[in-house]
């Protein structure tokens, strides 16, 4: 392209209103696109962050969620004694048998919603090292104390430290809040296994999670558990188990992002087409001069395409700026596999911003192509007459 780029950049600045209107149209599309993708990313991040690739999660054979699983105490003990389970401090196996139930809690202004109540032992902090108490204290053994994931603190009633919650026909005292690296654990309520078991289902856990001595040995561990006649269990990499739970919803959100933004993009492209046709029409004498001076039609085409790209780039950057404040905003949805409420934050990542800008540039390219082609294809004598 030999026509100087400054010609197009200054031409764009010459008509700020139409440029900004077109750019704003594209910015809105980019905003919607990024927002929906950030929603999808946030949900996926919450669930993928829930599992560690070094952990194995064991559920009853055929169970695709902890909700429908059941693991006896005996099975949990057998698992704890397996040689591939890593040793924690003091040589204790890094195993966390867990009760998993859904309880209904009052969410002010919304109504009842289901939340995961997870029974734990103190070893959970060794198996899940991203979990930490951020306020208050840990549960005292043998008491009706619970700790609340920080994502649901304040979203549900009676979740502040010192508050009492009623479920499982008992009253439970909130003694602490915990963080878990933004994962779905932060949307759970944790209490002691030995307290939750009698309150809910009796003498069974729903899952057992253990740290592998050798994370590369997962396949052989999985086979060993499947071949053990004493056990009726399926082993999953913990990371994959939770990531799979996000698959359906993230796919739907991704599809919706592309579909809705795609429909909006058609409108934005028409806006760009309109703006660029107007630019080409108004600058026919200038096109004539360029062609007369010896610039080739391809140069004219490239020049006007570049101009459309400049406008769409402005739109893309504006869309990104509009989307940035969404980052970190916490929202929640139902995990369709566990049927529980999962709170998560919008994740507006750099690669998402880049995609937004590329999306805008594609809109500009499509919207600018036909007007640019018209500019380049006009018989030189027709445009020369207007000069």
């Amino acid at each position: 392209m030999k026509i100087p780029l400054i010609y197009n950049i200054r031409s764009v600045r010459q008509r700020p209103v139409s440029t900004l209107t077109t750019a704003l149209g594209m910015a809105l599309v980019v905003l919607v696109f990024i927002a929906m993708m950030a929603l999808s990313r946030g949900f996926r991040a919450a669930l993928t962050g829930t599992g560690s690739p070094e952990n194995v999660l064991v559920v009853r054979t055929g169970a695709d969620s902890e909700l429908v699983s059941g693991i006896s105490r005996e099975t949990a003990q057998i698992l704890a004694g397996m040689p591939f389970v890593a040793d924690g401090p003091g040589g204790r196996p890094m195993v966390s048998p867990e009760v998993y139930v859904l309880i209904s809690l009052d969410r002010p202004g919304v109504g009842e919603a289901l939340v995961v109540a997870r029974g734990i032992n103190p070893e959970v902090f060794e198996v899940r090292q991203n979990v930490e108490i951020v306020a208050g204290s840990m549960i005292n053994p043998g008491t009706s104390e619970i700790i609340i994931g920080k994502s649901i603190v304040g979203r549900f009633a009676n979740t502040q430290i010192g508050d009492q919650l009623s479920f499982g026909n008992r009253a439970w005292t909130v003694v602490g809040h915990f963080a878990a690296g933004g994962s779905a654990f932060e949307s759970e309520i944790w209490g002691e296994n030995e307290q939750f078991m009698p309150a809910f289902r009796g003498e069974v856990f729903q899952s057992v999670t253990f740290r592998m001595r050798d994370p590369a040995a997962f396949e052989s561990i999985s086979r060993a558990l499947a071949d053990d006649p004493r056990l009726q269990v399926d082993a999953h990499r913990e990371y994959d188990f939770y990531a799979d739970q996000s698959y359906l919803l993230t796919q739907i959100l991704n599809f919706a992002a592309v579909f809705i933004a795609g429909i909006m993009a058609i409108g934005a492209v028409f806006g760009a087409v309109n703006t660029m046709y107007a630019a080409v029409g108004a600058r026919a004498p200038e096109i004539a001069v360029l062609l007369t001076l010896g610039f080739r039609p391809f140069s004219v085409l490239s020049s006007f395409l570049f101009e459309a790209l400049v406008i769409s780039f402005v739109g893309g950057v504006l869309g990104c700026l509009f989307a940035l404040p969404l980052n970190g905003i916490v929202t929640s949805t139902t995990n369709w596999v566990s049927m529980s409420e999962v709170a998560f934050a919008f994740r507006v990542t750099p690669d998402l911003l880049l995609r937004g800008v590329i999306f805008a540039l594609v809109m500009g390219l499509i919207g600018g192509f036909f007007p640019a082609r018209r500019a380049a294809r006009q018989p030189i004598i027709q445009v020369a007459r207007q000069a």
Partner: protein
Amino acid sequence: MALLEIRSLSKVYQRDSQAIPVFENIDLDIDTGEFLVLMGPSGSGKTTLLNLIAGLDEPTTGAIIVGGEEVTAMSRRQLAAWRSDHVGFIFQLYNLLPVLTAYQNVELPLLLTHLSKKERREHVMTALDVVGLSDRADHFPRQLSGGQEQRVAIGRAIVSDPTLILADEPTGDLDAKSADEILTLMQRLNREFDKTILLVTHDQRAAERGEAIMHLDKGVLTR
């Protein structure tokens, strides 16, 4: 020696089924270094002839040869390259790109050459110096008077040292004083720099600056 040779040139416009002849079988020679003025009433085909010589339009029949090259036999791509190498244009309405400075407007034809940025700068400043606007290089067209704009346009026309300068009513939009300055500049280009100029005008005072005058009227070209 003739720089420009026009042989049996005809141009007929087709409007629906109706043929509208502009001129037929025109012959014309312009020598190297000649300053020829082409006059005629509006609609007589002066600009059409100019466009044909520049390769902007195609004749119905006939041939145009410039410097030994048959312009009428060239493809569009060849014509674009030929124009950038050999032809300088001066329009009635200056036709400067409003968003570019005087310097950048004059530089435009050089962007089609292989000259370095430094070489281009030297050429542009020389052209602006010739037209007396080297101190206005950074001005935009809106910051210049009509006469100054036309001088920038002349700078653009001569910056690549073309073989032939084609001027279409270059003083048509100027006041008498500015028009006089432009015509004096064109005379200087012809006399000092030996430029071959074909000036189309219907202004008798402008025509008097040329070395020879031809008239195009009702399709007939006469000296």
